[in-house]
């Protein structure tokens, strides 16, 4: 695997530390484990993400996709494994520290600060992450929420709340952004617009992990996907290859038979 190759070449390089940080992925998760009681929600998950890359994360319900985002963002503490941002471990850091280092995420069920206005939701993130209030207007514009800036977040519909979640995350100027099921509930036109926006972010150098059920959406944004089952990666490759992979097919069909 490519991650193995670069790790080895990093160690054998001449300027060891320099080579290591040059080759360090923007985000690297290794051997992530998370248990809820006796249940292993994550069971040794590893992946790498380069600058400007969009990695798709698929898998049946309950396979651990959201848990992956929770553990990487620090919302849940890991029971094992490590998360590195640009080669530096962040596994022990509180979520707000990871945010300030450039790691952010959205929620499958959006979680805006409901009693605050749309503007305040984005403003507080811009201020406290250190990005500065200059980015607020830009993020609201990006998420097509500028005309709703004065509204209470609780009055937004689901699609608007999802975009607010994204605007809040963007206001922290993330280098890595983890997006949990953006596609659910969007119509085809909205899906396509969102895909373009995410691709534009990646072109600016943001690395994205996109958890998604909508295959068409994944095909638009990412060349590489990881398929999860029972807390492990069972496949890594293109979306097209995933659809052909017998184990992936079995896992998804298995879900339907339950």
């Amino acid at each position, binding site marked *: 695997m490519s991650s193995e190759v670069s790790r080895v070449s990093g160690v054998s390089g001449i300027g060891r530390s320099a080579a290591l940080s040059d080759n360090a992925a923007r985000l690297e998760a290794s051997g992530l484990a998370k248990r809820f009681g006796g249940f292993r929600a994550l069971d040794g998950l590893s992946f790498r993400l380069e600058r400007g890359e969009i990695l798709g994360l698929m898998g049946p319900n309950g396979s651990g996709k959201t848990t992956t985002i929770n553990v990487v*963002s*620090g*919302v849940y503490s890991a029971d094992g494994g490590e998360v590195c941002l640009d080669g530096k471990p962040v596994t022990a850091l*509180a*979520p*707000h520290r990871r*945010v*300030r280092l450039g790691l*952010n*995420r959205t929620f499958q069920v959006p*979680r*805006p*600060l*409901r*009693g*605050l206005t749309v503007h*305040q*939701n984005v*403003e*507080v*993130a811009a*201020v*406290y*992450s*250190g990005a500065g209030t200059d980015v607020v207007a830009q993020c609201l514009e990006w998420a097509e929420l500028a005309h709703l800036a004065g509204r209470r977040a609780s009055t937004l519909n689901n699609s608007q709340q999802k975009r607010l979640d994204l605007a*809040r*995350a963007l*206001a*922290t100027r993330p280098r890595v952004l983890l997006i949990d099921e953006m596609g659910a509930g969007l119509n085809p036109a909205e899906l396509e617009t969102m895909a373009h926006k995410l691709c534009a972010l990646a072109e600016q150098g943001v690395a994205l992990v996109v958890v998604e059920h909508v295959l068409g959406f994944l095909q638009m944004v990412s060349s590489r996907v990881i398929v999860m089952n029972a807390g492990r990666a069972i496949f890594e490759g293109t979306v097209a290859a995933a659809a052909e992979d017998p184990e992936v097919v079995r896992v998804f069909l298995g879900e339907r038979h339950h």
Partner: protein
Amino acid sequence: MLKAVLTGVATVGLFALAPVFYANQTLLFSAMMYLVLAQGINVLYGFTGYLPFGYVGFFGAGAYAGALSVLRLGLSPVLALVVGGVVAVLVGVVLVPLLRLSGAYFAIANLAAAQALYYVVSNPDLQALTNGPYGINLAVAYNATASYAAMVALLGLALATVVYLRHSRLGLALRAIREDRISAELAGINVVRERTIAWLLSALLAGLCGAAFAWYISVFYPETVFSLNVSIFAIVFALFGGAATLAGPIVGTLVLYGLYSAIGISQPEYFQLIFGLVIVGLVLFLPDGLASLSERAGFEVP
């Protein structure tokens, strides 16, 4: 913002001038004291959601620290106020771990902490220091006018603190934390740090208030300054009017304390019961108090 500043200035002005027109200065002083405490509760509950039933612990700590620094260290009463505030903040620092608890667990642990302070202060073995259960006599420093003025200044400070919280980035962060802790963290907010600041600010106000009370009242007992009633009154006044606003606790204190003074002082035990029930009712059915009714009617509360 302008409306809030005007409300604050009017309130402080009212109490500064009231003794000229109204003879019962002690009643005015008590009303101010509860106003400060209600705003102190507001700083914590309104902006973080923690309901501190042991709030009186800070008040009592401030009263004793202030009084003892006059009696034992010979400090001037004004300096003693500062000591009262500082000691309450130190108590707050010791109790910071309580903030890890939530809801009823926090309320109970905070109440127990206040009770523990009471037992320490009233312990006969500490009579040489605190005079134990026999209380404090601060007659040497008695000055009704100066201590009244100190409470007016303190009222100004308490109101300014709330105005600041409503219009500053710290206030925005605290409201974000109250809305959703996780989302607040993902906005980059250091939840533990900002919460601790609110907790200590709230402790400071109560400590200063306790020291000013000790100065004004001059003779008091441990039961007086560690009475659970002080917490209950301050909480009900803050919640009734509406937490997280400036005007809510002002209205709540003036209405409910006015009512209590008019009919309750002869039967205080009924009011303990009634106020206790009012707290339950408010928390369950009207968590944002009268202010939320007024906002529903389209009138923004400063």
